[in-house]
């Protein structure tokens, strides 16, 4: 184990997988010479050279299309989209091509590719640069969607994503890059795709989070512990496939749930999770599933009002108190 940042853990995963498999290559805007807008690809060009670490034009749809072709042609591309917001320019290749190709062609080919996308709000980047689009990807069958909250999961999940033979959308939160944690050094350390993690044990309320929302949920849980409320925090890690089993096991214990989602509330992943919980264990619930969500508004720039649009530890704490006291 060694302590490192979320950024360095991702960087290490990239390096290890590039050493491990010569068919892995990295492409994206400013990933090589500039070492990435968020410096996740630092040192890659120096170690692996221009053949395997490639700067691209600002052409998102084609970055993904080229990755699809390269994957079909026997390579293992790891594309970086500078931020998730720009994935919207690549939705044609992601949704109409990448996610369909294997099934549409009767299983005769596969696309072992990963798309990394930093995203999330909270940095006063305004409406076009602050989006949380996880639900957009989860909605589409044919690809996995991962979202680590900790440095260890960042490393282990990214390695699994790169080794996986399915297309993977890999989301990273811009405000987590500097967060630190213990990370296994073992180059064979992998975090399985499709498995949630119980990040904190408790038995009165289950709080479900992912990405930065897990970190806020843990903060809220810590404060609530001081007030005598025991929360279990489930960190989804994998949004698709979604680990319903781990969520339901926790809910069966607690009988109360708060789902925290950074994305817009309408059609947010919290609705999907609530529905799965109702299907699996409606009769065991002591309160309706409570959702803490991003507000259904384009993100304003001003820091004063941006804050009110994004879930905060305090809103999560309040939500837990609400389900405990029967105020839904």
């Amino acid at each position, binding site marked *: 184990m060694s302590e490192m940042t979320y950024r360095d853990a991702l960087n290490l995963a990239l390096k290890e997988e590039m050493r491990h498999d010569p068919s892995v290559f990295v492409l994206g805007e*400013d990933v090589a010479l500039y070492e990435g807008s968020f410096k996740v690809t630092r040192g890659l060009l120096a170690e692996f050279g221009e053949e395997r670490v490639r*700067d691209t034009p*600002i052409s998102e749809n084609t970055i993904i299309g080229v990755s699809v072709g390269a994957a079909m042609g026997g390579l293992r591309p790891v594309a970086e989209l500078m931020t998730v917001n720009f994935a919207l*320019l690549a939705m044609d290749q992601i949704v109409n091509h990448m996610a369909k190709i294997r099934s549409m062609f009767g299983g005769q080919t596969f696309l072992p590719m990963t798309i990394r996308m930093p995203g999330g709000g909270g940095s006063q*980047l*305004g409406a*076009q640069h602050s989006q949380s689009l996880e639900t957009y990807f989860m909605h589409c069958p044919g690809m996995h969607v991962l979202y680590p909250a900790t440095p260890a999961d960042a490393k282990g999940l990214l390695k699994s994503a790169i080794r996986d033979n399915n297309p993977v959308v890999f989301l990273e939160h811009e405000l987590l890059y500097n967060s630190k944690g213990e990370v296994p050094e073992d180059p064979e350390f992998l975090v399985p795709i499709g498995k949630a993690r119980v990040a904190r044990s408790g038995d009165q309320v289950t709080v479900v989070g992912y990405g930065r929302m897990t970190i806020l949920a843990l903060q809220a849980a810590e404060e609530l512990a001081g007030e005598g409320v025991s929360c279990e925090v489930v960190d989804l890690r994998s949004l698709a496939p979604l680990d319903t089993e781990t969520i339901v096991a926790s809910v069966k214990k607690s009988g109360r749930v708060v789902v925290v989602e950074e994305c817009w509330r309408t059609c947010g992943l919290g609705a999907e999770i609530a529905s799965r919980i109702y299907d699996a264990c409606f009769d065991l619930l002591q309160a309706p599933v409570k959702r803490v969500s991003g507000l259904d508004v384009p993100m304003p*720039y001003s820091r*004063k009002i941006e804050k009110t649009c994004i879930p905060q530890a305090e809103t999560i704490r309040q939500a837990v108190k609400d389900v405990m006291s029967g105020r839904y």
Partner: protein
Amino acid sequence: MQTRLRMVLPDQELLKLYEQMFLSREFEESCAEQYAKGHITGFLHLYSGQEAVAVGATAGLHKDDYILSAYREHAQAIVRGADPKRVMAELFGKATGICKGKGGSMHLFDPSLNFMGGYAIVGGQFPISVGLAFAAQYRGEERIAACFFGDGAVNQGTFHESLNWAQLWHLPVLFVCENNFYGIGTEVHRSSALASIHKRTCGYDIPSEKVDGMDVIAVYKAVKYATEKVRESGHPYFIEATTYRFRGHSMADPAKYRSAAEHEVWKARDPLPNYARQLLDESIATREQLDAIETRCRATVEAAVKFAEESPWPEDSTVWEDIYV
């Protein structure tokens, strides 16, 4: 050979160009200070070095013409007439900002000035410019849509689709590429197969020319000529203005990918002192007159900062406002 200035514009107009460039530079450098103090947050892309493009081009346009740009657009908005106070307040995230604090540095907008927005998705403004030009044509208005963008933006699909469209529908669009040779850390020849950007328009049969974007008069003349052509022919036109940003891509970028020597070469071509020298050499202004202009600009920017500082924050409830009509 530089053109004699008086052959181009009357003295008053020539001085106005200087004032606009100086104001832009002062505004940007003040933004850098306010960013360091934490008053401006988020992304901040400064225009220092590129002033001759916005100022020369805006002078060559009519007030009715639309202007659209990317996220490095403070100067474009201010030169078009946006109140520096309300622009600074926007950057501070205050309720008095030009977009009520909702837009920020990358998203200025003022339809009363036909300034139709700063867009932060690279290439987003191309088709919108085409649409505005279409609306103008449809309504029988005499306007041009002037679309500003960087060298990095020309590899987006929307660039090619919009060039084709504008020519196909005979739309009055003036495309102005501000080629500062870098898209973040990527030099233009590393992102474009044909780095001479104005040549790309031959695929769409759109006339184009390259102009020295460090020379405000050259930009003015090129835009004036281009807009006359557009108004006459009803077809689009394309200008590539070569320029340089003196700062990093944004405040977060130390710009280590550019050599000090390269920077020096461009610094020597700084449009402000060079144009000032021309004004003095041709006796269009005295040093005292220029000093007075500079003092006035500094006071304007100081007043803008004070206004922004003293302005109220937007209320939380405003996040629900202005989403639907």
